[in-house]
């Protein structure tokens, strides 16, 4: 760094880092052209990690996904999947609306984030995406049978049910994606005695090799439902079931380092409760239990919801009912944001709302989509470039 008039000594390196780590990525992307020194610091591996680990509320934002039907067409598959960015402040201000990912197939899913990176999958293609840097990285096609290149409009009867997860293996410094396919077409559904034989096919993608590989079958089915997928403790979590008549279900986890599946049981007595969402709250797995109410038009029904925290990861006895919130009009719990204080929910008729876990205050966020299609991913700003991570390996 050259001094122009030498009046002040150049900024000590650690002070510079201490200031820069507090800046939003937008500012850093501008200041990288100040000089080579600043550019090198901002792009250094150490700084990227310091910046990501600096915690501050303004570093968070939300990705909001919804499906919107196109007027005048009754087909449930005809419409747009919209993705937009919103601030993490009280106003839920739109930062970028409906421009980032538009796809007129219904089968678009987002999972994550992992270090600020999400995985987006549609029937056409799949990609890793860093919303902070607006960087897409398209992945090679799936190797599982019945790869989802099919449009559901054409091949509805062979509709593929796919569940996904994204994670990071700290042992190899590698990003991974997992996809779990339920090969419905291979099963005879009349054969109800054989429910325990149901298995799911699994493939894992490594960014290091940029390729998919098949791993051992999973001995149960995984529910692809949008509000039950969570990354915590280096593992992804979904709801597992064997479709037994008793309706048993549990949490299935996949550890990205060991590549092993594990079952985590719900609090005693809640195994067969159908309506549960899984989120992360206070750095723990959190289970939200509610009742599925069918909302007839113009009738408003309120209910209270229970939130259970698993205080000690993996230990069933450590589930504790931490909050009871409501009553409120809720269709689906979506995510927790604002420093673990606000619960975002889908209210009736596809409306987005938030509810304060401590004072119960209910806020309409003035956004909506087709009922039962809203999704919220709370993301932290991240300078981690997927392309640069990939270049490390090639």
């Amino acid at each position, binding site marked *: 760094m050259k001094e*122009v008039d030498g009046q002040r000594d150049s*900024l000590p390196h650690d002070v510079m880092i*201490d200031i820069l780590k507090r800046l939003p990525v937008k500012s850093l992307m501008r200041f990288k052209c100040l000089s080579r020194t600043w550019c090198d610091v901002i792009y250094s591996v150490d700084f990227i990690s310091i910046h990501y680990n600096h915690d501050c509320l303004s570093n968070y934002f939300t990705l909001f996904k919804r499906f919107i039907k196109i007027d005048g067409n009754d087909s449930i598959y005809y419409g747009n999947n919209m993705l937009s960015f919103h601030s993490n402040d009280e106003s839920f201000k739109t930062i970028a609306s409906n421009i980032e990912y538009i796809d007129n197939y219904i089968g678009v899913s987002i999972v994550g984030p992992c270090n600020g990176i999400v995985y987006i999958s549609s029937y056409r293609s799949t990609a890793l995406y860093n919303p902070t840097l607006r960087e897409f990285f398209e992945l090679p096609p799936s190797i599982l049978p019945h790869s989802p290149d099919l449009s559901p409009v054409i091949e509805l009867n062979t509709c593929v049910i796919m569940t996904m997860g994204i994670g990071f293996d700290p042992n190899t410094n590698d990003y991974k994606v997992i996809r779990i396919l339920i090969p419905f077409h291979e099963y005879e559904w009349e054969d109800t005695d054989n429910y325990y034989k149901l298995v799911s096919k699994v493939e894992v993608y490594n960014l290091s090799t940029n390729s998919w590989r098949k791993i051992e079958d999973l001995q149960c089915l995984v529910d692809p439902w949008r509000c039950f997928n969570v990354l915590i403790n280096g593992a992804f979590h979904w709801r597992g079931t064997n479709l037994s008549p008793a309706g048993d279900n549990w949490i299935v986890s996949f550890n990205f380092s060991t590549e092993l599946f594990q079952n985590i049981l719900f609090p005693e007595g809640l195994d067969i409760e159908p309506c549960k969402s899984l989120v992360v709250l206070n750095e723990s797995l959190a289970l939200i239990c509610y009742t599925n109410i069918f909302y007839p038009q113009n009738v408003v029904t309120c209910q209270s919801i229970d939130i259970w925290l698993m205080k000690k990861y993996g230990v069933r006895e450590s589930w504790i009912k931490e909050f009871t919130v409501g009553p409120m009009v809720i269709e689906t719990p979506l995510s927790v944001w604002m420093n673990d204080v606000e619960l975002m929910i889908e209210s009736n008729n596809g409306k987005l709302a938030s509810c304060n876990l401590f004072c119960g205050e209910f806020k309409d966020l003035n956004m909506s989509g087709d009922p039962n299609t809203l999704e919220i991913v709370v993301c932290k700003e991240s300078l981690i470039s997927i392309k640069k991570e990939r270049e490390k390996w090639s």
Partner: protein
Amino acid sequence: MASSTTGEKKILTLKGGDNEEFILEESLVLQSELLKNMVKEERVSSIPLPSIKSKTLVKIIEYLKKHAELTPSNKEEFKNFEKEFVNVVLEELLDITVAVNYLKINGLLEFCCQAVADRIKDKSVEAVRKIFRIESDFTPEEESEFRKETPEAFEGDLDDTTN
């Protein structure tokens, strides 16, 4: 060298860059890790700080006094004081930040760095160059390449002022 005392309170002299002397209670400077070590290990009564301007030192001593008086009941008042404390021209705030870093006053350092970050985050490249006295070593072509890479970073109302 033994510290001089009045009653039971030990007194210490800090000497700023322009040789101006500041006499204060030793207990106050213990908030600085650097001075604390000097006082404890060497038992000095006068500490020269040639790299810190007197103007900056006055501000820092003002903070040390206020911080020493902080109790649960005047928290609000202290917060207001902190806000006012960093409400100085950026040039001066940077001097304070660098001095606080040198003196190792950890709580204040964090607060100053956050204040600097808040002040520069919406500034233009040219303004920040002036503030930190940086001469660009990029060619205009390289610079326009950066702008093309992340155009959204250069959008919006950017602040061209340096204070």
